[in-house]
């Protein structure tokens, strides 16, 4: 990109959705997670390790908070005092929310994290210099830094174990940031196939690893601009809009009966992941 190109295309290079004159077309990958269905079993997280070559850091590094799980299951207890958690715990799968106005993107000094045309928040390992500003600025703290050089660490992928590595995903060396990619390698493969056939990716044609594993099918993933997709239908049914920081339904006095919400929406990152509230029986 030459200077003139840079100047001409600056607005596109730094193109932020949501803007009304640039709707997503034909893809906007999005997710919805029903935390009422989520049982907290961690199958998604393990699937993510398997799919995305995530290093197992070991006890000592985990103790220092250097774990790399792109997808973590958070377990919440009620805020008030209680003797016993009589309504169980709340489990929340948390990974990169692929924000539309991602706080991480603006601050990266080298532009290693960008927005893609299909609504993903990309992370380019080979461009990253490791300033960690993106992580500093991430409200969800879902970006994970390679504190050590895991590919050369004998405890992480010893001989044979390294044969499990997925060749479609780069193995990250020390000093770069990484995070959930919505399994971009699968998305791109599906997009390329669809392109070759002159169509767009169909609903159900591509799954993320977590969605595929989830035993309770709590995770739906798909193309938000495809009216046929389950994700589109869910977002619509829950009246969750991408481009707002407070949903209409949340302004209703007394609350609405809808369950869809996005986490830390008020900070205006416009996350691409909608959560559905947990439900508990009122009769017991």
């Amino acid at each position, binding site marked *: 990109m*030459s200077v003139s190109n840079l100047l001409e295309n600056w607005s596109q290079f730094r193109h932020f959705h949501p803007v009304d004159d640039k709707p997503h077309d034909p893809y906007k990958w999005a997710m919805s997670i029903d935390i009422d269905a989520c049982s907290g079993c961690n199958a998604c997280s393990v699937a993510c390790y398997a799919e995305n070559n995530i290093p197992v850091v070991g006890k000592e590094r985990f103790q220092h908070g250097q774990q790399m799980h792109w997808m973590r299951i958070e377990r919440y207890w009620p805020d008030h005092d209680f003797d016993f958690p009589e309504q169980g715990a709340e489990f929340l799968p948390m990974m990169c929310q692929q924000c539309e106005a991602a706080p991480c993107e603006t601050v990266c000094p080298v532009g290693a994290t960008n927005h893609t045309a299909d609504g993903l928040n990309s992370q380019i390992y080979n461009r990253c210099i490791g300033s960690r500003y993106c992580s500093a600025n991430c409200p969800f703290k879902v970006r994970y830094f390679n504190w050590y050089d895991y590919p050369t660490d004998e405890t992480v992928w010893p001989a044979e174990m390294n044969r499990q590595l997925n060749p479609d995903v780069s193995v990250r060396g020390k000093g770069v940031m990484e995070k959930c990619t919505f399994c971009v390698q699968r998305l791109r493969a599906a997009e390329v196939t669809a392109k070759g056939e002159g169509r767009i990716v169909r609903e159900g044609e591509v799954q993320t690893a977590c969605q595929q594993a989830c035993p309770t099918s709590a995770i739906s993933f798909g193309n938000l601009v495809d009216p046929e997709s389950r994700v589109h239908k869910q977002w619509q049914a829950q009246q969750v809009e991408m481009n707002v920081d407070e949903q209409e339904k949340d302004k209703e006095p007394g609350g609405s009966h809808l369950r869809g919400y996005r986490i830390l929406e008020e900070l205006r990152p416009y996350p691409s992941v909608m959560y559905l509230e947990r439900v508990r029986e009122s009769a017991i």
Partner: protein
Amino acid sequence: MKDIREDIAWAKINRDVLVSLENPRKLYWVIVFGALSLFSVGLGCEIYQYQVGMGVANLNNPNVWGLYIATFIFWIGMSHSGTLLSAILHLMHADWRKPIYRFAEAMTTFSLMTAGLFVMVHIGRLWQFYYALPYPNDRGTWPNFQSPLLWDAMAIFTYLSSSVLFLYVGMIPDLAICRDNLHKGWRKKLYTLLALGWEGTDRQWRNFRVTYLTIACFLIPLAVSVHSIVASDFAMSQQPGWHVTSFPPYFVAGALYSGCAAIITLFIILRYVFRFEDYMTKSILKKTVRLTFAIAMVWTYLNAVEFAAVWYGHDMDAKAVLIQKATGPFAPFWWGMVFCGSVVPLMLAFKRFQTNIPVLFAVSLLLNLGMWLERWMIVAPTFSHGYYPWVWDNDQWPSLIQWGMVMGSFGWFTLLFMVFCKVFPSVSMYEVKEMVYHRSLHLKKNETAGQGAH
């Protein structure tokens, strides 16, 4: 008490200053040796961290920045007082700055260089740092001009190069003196080269003054902008606790504050090791101390503004961070900051301490400690208590590697500074002469006025 004696002969000035290039007290060598050892420790830590990975610094997911960035801000801040003394006071014609501005200016340069090191130390892939530079390349990629870090890099680089230029230009007449008074060795060659054939002609002096003034004018906005941009590293991000409107002035005030404190420290050291008692007089020290006190109060005020704005504001997350600072695991350091930064300087209000060198030395060190803590307390608590409670972490004690590098940076700075003072005249000879001349003129005027000759 006089800023300087009016009866010092110009030749004595030359002699006294030039002697510092050759024969300091023993303490000088002790300091240089100490600095060198500290620096080696830091260097060792960096080599280890470079080879093994950033993990050895015991940083983790929420706490991604740690002491490196805190110390980076500290050093950037330290650099500001040099500019204050040399450029701002120059424009304001405060001539008492003349004997001390040279080393303050050197301090600016070296603390900026130290700060730059922390940027390097901090990034995960040091070997790829050039990706952050805007240069045409075969990948066709550019850095992200939207990132405050990039502004930061540019601001610091500009500031550093301007400071070096300013320091150098201001030194040219003195280098010529050195050239003319030293007769052998590599130094002679060095001074000859650097003096650029200065002969002290009227034309040279005229051009010199214009150049010096221009750079000074250029430097002042730059200095203010540098620390404002450092403040925007934080203010432009989304984390709670960094969004008070007064953040940039708060940073600038903090910067001047720590710089002034450092000037007092170095003033006392230089005065002793180079026997500069005639030039770095207690009177000048007193003025510096008063300036420091004023800035300390400005800083305290801005600090209070920040707390109040957070406390009475609507941002509950920022408030939670503030409460966490005051009561959480960082409380000792936070209260330490308040004590060192706002309470200790009150001592400077008392006249009897304003010239008491041992007390001032101790106080100036405490002030600097306070300012360092301030920077740490800006960075760390927000990270460990951000928007997302799941990752809250109160067990984030920096590893010895981090501490080693912080110590190493002090060693590095002191080393550079001490070497500078030994190689270049750390008191501006020609300006002291000017000062003496002006004072004596003034004195004569007063005398004649006293005699009622008119």
